[in-house]
């Protein structure tokens, strides 16, 4: 730069009107010169104002044309295929673990169950309700080999998922009488399958495995929808109060969860921070201590975490 700065190129640069080598010099200089960086940023903003001021509504027909061309270029993922994919990944994971178990290992205690065999029978039973409302043949999961029956039924559930089925109400596992649409029950099926895969990993002496960020976020959303009712059912409701949940790591996000079923907005009484993965393990009843950072009303936070820890499917 001849003047030690951008050599009066800031305007041309902001408009994308520098030859490539000069544009690179300006960018490099601006990285170490706050004065020029500020000028370039301001002029780029002005250039964007000019562009934005040219906004013009396209003809109405263009929208469907664009969406059709996009669909042809890359098929969209439907909600059913996405839910099936997330669940299917955990089914494949658990099946792979079960495949390597020895006969004696099948008889070892796993999670809260007396044996791995009991765990698989229990999981197959919990999956059965979703299979039934999805129109899966009731004989699909039967048979003497629990692994094969469970897997056949799980595959049939994925196969049967489509958008009308997602709206069907079904009784969730673990919560007597709580009915939710299949779309939520599928999140719970994936959640339970993951947790049991973790139980089996303990039997095999394998380290824990973190699910996808997307699955963790789905599980948190699922639980967040149930928690206000669960607080009341557990006799620990705090009407008018909420917790601000800050989840970190994969599946990170914040949620405000009311501590009683009510339509009125609730005021935040406590803040709770912990990794999303830990929160999901807590929900499954697999943690003895949440290890969460708590701000505000400790009693409220403890009530919340205590009820959250009962949201599993065992």
């Amino acid at each position: 730069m001849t003047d030690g700065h951008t050599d009066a190129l800031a305007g041309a640069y902001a408009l994308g009107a520098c030859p490539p080598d000069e544009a690179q010099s300006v960018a490099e200089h601006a990285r170490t010169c706050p004065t020029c960086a500020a000028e370039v940023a301001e002029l780029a903003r002005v250039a964007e104002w000019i562009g934005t001021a040219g906004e013009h509504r396209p003809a109405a027909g263009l929208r469907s044309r664009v969406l059709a061309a996009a669909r042809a270029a890359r098929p969209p993922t439907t909600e059913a295929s996405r839910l099936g994919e997330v669940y299917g990944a955990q089914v494949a994971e658990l099946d792979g673990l079960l495949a390597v178990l020895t006969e004696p290992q099948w008889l070892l205690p796993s999670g809260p169950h007396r044996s791995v065999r009991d765990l698989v029978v229990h999981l197959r039973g919990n999956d059965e309700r979703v299979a039934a409302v999805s129109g899966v043949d009731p004989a699909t999961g039967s048979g003497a080999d629990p692994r094969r029956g469970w897997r056949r039924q799980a595959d049939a559930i994925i196969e049967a998922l489509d958008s009308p089925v997602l709206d069907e109400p079904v009784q969730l596992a673990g919560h007597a009488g709580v009915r939710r649409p299949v779309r939520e029950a599928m999140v719970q099926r994936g959640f339970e399958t993951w947790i049991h895969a973790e139980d089996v990993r303990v039997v095999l002496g394998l380290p824990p495995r973190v699910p996808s960020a997307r699955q963790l976020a789905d599980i948190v959303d699922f639980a967040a929808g149930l928690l206000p009712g669960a607080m009341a059912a557990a006799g620990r409701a705090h009407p008018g109060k909420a917790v601000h949940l800050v989840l970190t790591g994969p599946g990170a996000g914040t949620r405000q969860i009311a501590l009683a079923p009510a339509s009125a907005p609730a005021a935040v009484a406590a803040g709770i921070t912990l990794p999303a993965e830990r929160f999901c393990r807590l929900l499954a009843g697999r943690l003895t201590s949440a290890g969460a950072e708590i701000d505000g009303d400790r009693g409220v936070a403890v009530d919340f975490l205590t009820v959250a820890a009962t949201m599993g499917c065992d």
Partner: protein
Amino acid sequence: MLGLPDQNDVRMRDGLIAGSEPILAEAYDTYGPLVYGMALHVTRDRGAAEDITQDVFVDLWRRPERYDPERSPLRSWLLLIARRRAIDCIRRRDARESARLAMVDPPPTLLEDDVLASTAHKRVRKAVADLPSTHRQAILLAYYRGLTYRQVAQALGIPEGTAKWRLRNALHRIGAQLRAEGFGDRLEYE
């Protein structure tokens, strides 16, 4: 400076990567007029502007991972892509013709039915219109024709140093006028 990444942009990118068609529709509904408006200003041709708009959103849908919310807002990124594509489009047309067109005002039939022109938009357009014509021509050639400042100098028959100075000074003038009218970092919509 605006904080990056914008959480809404992150949400949209994640949705596009996941293949969510409703998110694509939301992106089109939010930014379609911006992309189409840019393409129309550059090409002065409705058909070409529609084709460019389609290409921009189909590309966003096919390769959403190319957009990085850490580097720029989605709005700025789409505007830049639309401008580049539109400039490529006119480069394929007669360069001399497009240079001539850049210096005349847009044909009224093309732009007058602009229902989206908010007061903020009108103020920006007025700030551009209020520039001395020498400055305005330089800006329009660079921004809407994709000319480098050297090509601007050539097209206007002025020294390169003058072209550089006009581009910089023109943006400063517009910025000062709009800041004086209370513009913040984001163009306010009404």
